[in-house]
């Protein structure tokens, strides 16, 4: 049976995934909007950067984040200068890492959805006297709602399933940075297969349910592949 420390890992996992998803929706929406509508000639560079975590081994991403967030890295120096401690091996560090790691899973569905909405509806709204912000909230967001749902669920699920990056930058500190996937790893290392089963089975079911929800709600629309 799972014990207290497993439940702590569960709550850290959900807190991390929830916060990451929220931050990614806030940052990813304007980024996806800009990528959809810009005529900037080098936008493909930014698109490639956003998509990097899809192909990069998590250990590579984790390694560079660790260097950047550590006391001698650029981000570490800034946080020190601001009077804080380096972000490596902290929960905040995990959030920063997860935002990078799950970025494509939020930005790409949003960008696809905004592309599908197209310019025409926005032009119609402009001729009907809606200013740009008004057009965004009353036309683009409602028409892209399936994209928002897909982005939120994929961002959340992908963060829950994170392992490599967290191990690199967060370590394995119970009660602070130990998430479910790492707790499972610990149980297997300690040959506690029964507890590993409980957690793994739970994650399996959860991931299936979340993806099922996305596909079920999107079945009327073109599904954006993760």
């Amino acid at each position: 049976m799972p014990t207290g420390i497993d439940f702590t890992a569960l709550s850290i996992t959900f807190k991390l995934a929830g916060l990451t998803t929220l931050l990614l929706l806030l940052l990813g929406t304007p980024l996806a909007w800009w990528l959809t509508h810009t005529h900037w000639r080098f936008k493909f560079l930014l698109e490639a950067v956003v998509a990097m975590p899809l192909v990069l081994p998590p250990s590579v991403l984790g390694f560079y984040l660790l260097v950047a967030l550590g006391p001698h890295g650029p981000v570490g120096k800034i946080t020190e200068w601001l009077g804080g401690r380096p972000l490596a091996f902290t929960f905040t560090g995990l959030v920063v890492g997860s935002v990078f790691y799950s970025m494509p899973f939020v930005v790409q569905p949003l960008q696809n959805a905004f592309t599908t909405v197209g310019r025409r509806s926005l032009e119609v709204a402009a001729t009907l006297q809606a200013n740009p912000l008004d057009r965004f909230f009353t036309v683009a967001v409602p028409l892209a709602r399936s994209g928002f749902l897909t982005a939120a669920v994929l961002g959340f699920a992908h963060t829950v399933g994170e392992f490599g990056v967290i191990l690199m930058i967060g370590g394995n500190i119970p009660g602070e940075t130990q998430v479910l996937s790492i707790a499972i790893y610990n149980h297997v290392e300690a040959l506690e297969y029964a507890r590993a089963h409980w957690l793994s089975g739970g994650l399996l079911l959860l991931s299936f349910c979340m993806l099922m929800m996305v596909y079920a709600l999107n079945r009327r629309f073109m599904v954006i592949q993760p």
Partner: protein
Amino acid sequence: MSIEGRFRFERQNFILDVHLDIPGRGVTAIFGPSGSGKTSLLRAIAGLDRCHGGYMRIGDTLWQDGRTFVPPENRRLGFVFQDASLFTHLNVRRNLEYGFKRTPVAERKVSIEKITRLLGIGSLLERRPDQLSGGEQQRVAIARALAVSPKILLMDEPLSALDLPRKQEIMPYLESLHDELDIPILYVSHSLNEVARLADCLVLIEEGRIRATGAIGEMLTRFDLPLAHGDQAEVLVEANVAGHDDAFDLTYLDFPGGRLSVVRTGLPIGHAVRLRVAARDVSLTLEQHTGTSILNIFRATVEEIISEGSAQVTVRLAAGGVPLLSRITRKSSTLLDLERGKSVFAQVKSVALLS
């Protein structure tokens, strides 16, 4: 009030360079072949595409000059696109209300109810856009554009995406806009048929330039323009219902050149109608024939004759000051010894009632 616009810009290997100066009332058609720049011009007028160095004024309201650019959302214009582009997340009523709500109360000149009635969409209000036919969607789109009480209604080939029955379904509504609302309409089209039915004024555009601007009746008969040539050449005649003939089931229509007989219509006496007379349906004689089945014969004067290829000519006539075109063979023209100023009789084989 008048409407004036000046735009010059380049799109992929295409230059639009126009100076538009048209009356601020009635329907003005921007007519020209596909790719001549009609849509680009309309988008520049609306401010959907920003044309640097452009100028746009409607009545006393300046929309654009060297320093000013009013974005489309602050112009209070109605724009109807080729496809209806209804908001699919809103039902018909909320599509109509979208612009209406964003119009200051003091500036609202029409109610949703009036617009709904005008376009015959009262029974569709609670439907979703995907439950409407193509024609219904376009009627809702027109209603939605009118709901902002626009200073001008811009229509970009609003019928081109529809099949013929749908076009015929919408046409009467467009005609009623002309009669019932005091809003200038700019109507982009490449269909002479639509233009002939709706327009008062015509702007002929070719390869990004305005070839000519004028009253539709005059434009159709000017030999220096392409409209008066080819098989489609036709004239428009404005007439009034003079009476009905119960014995023969005919309606008599008076125009300055005489009295026309057409198959009986239900129109009341005095009603103004627009008729279309194709050049190929008008033949000429020197004396007034009596033994003929043709009822519509008018005394006319030859104004100008122009060759159409080697075998045919088009003759422009004036019947009581109203221009008519007649397409005949060059041989007939020679046998009749036609020349400018000669008095003839024009036999009109058929006329089409447009409104």
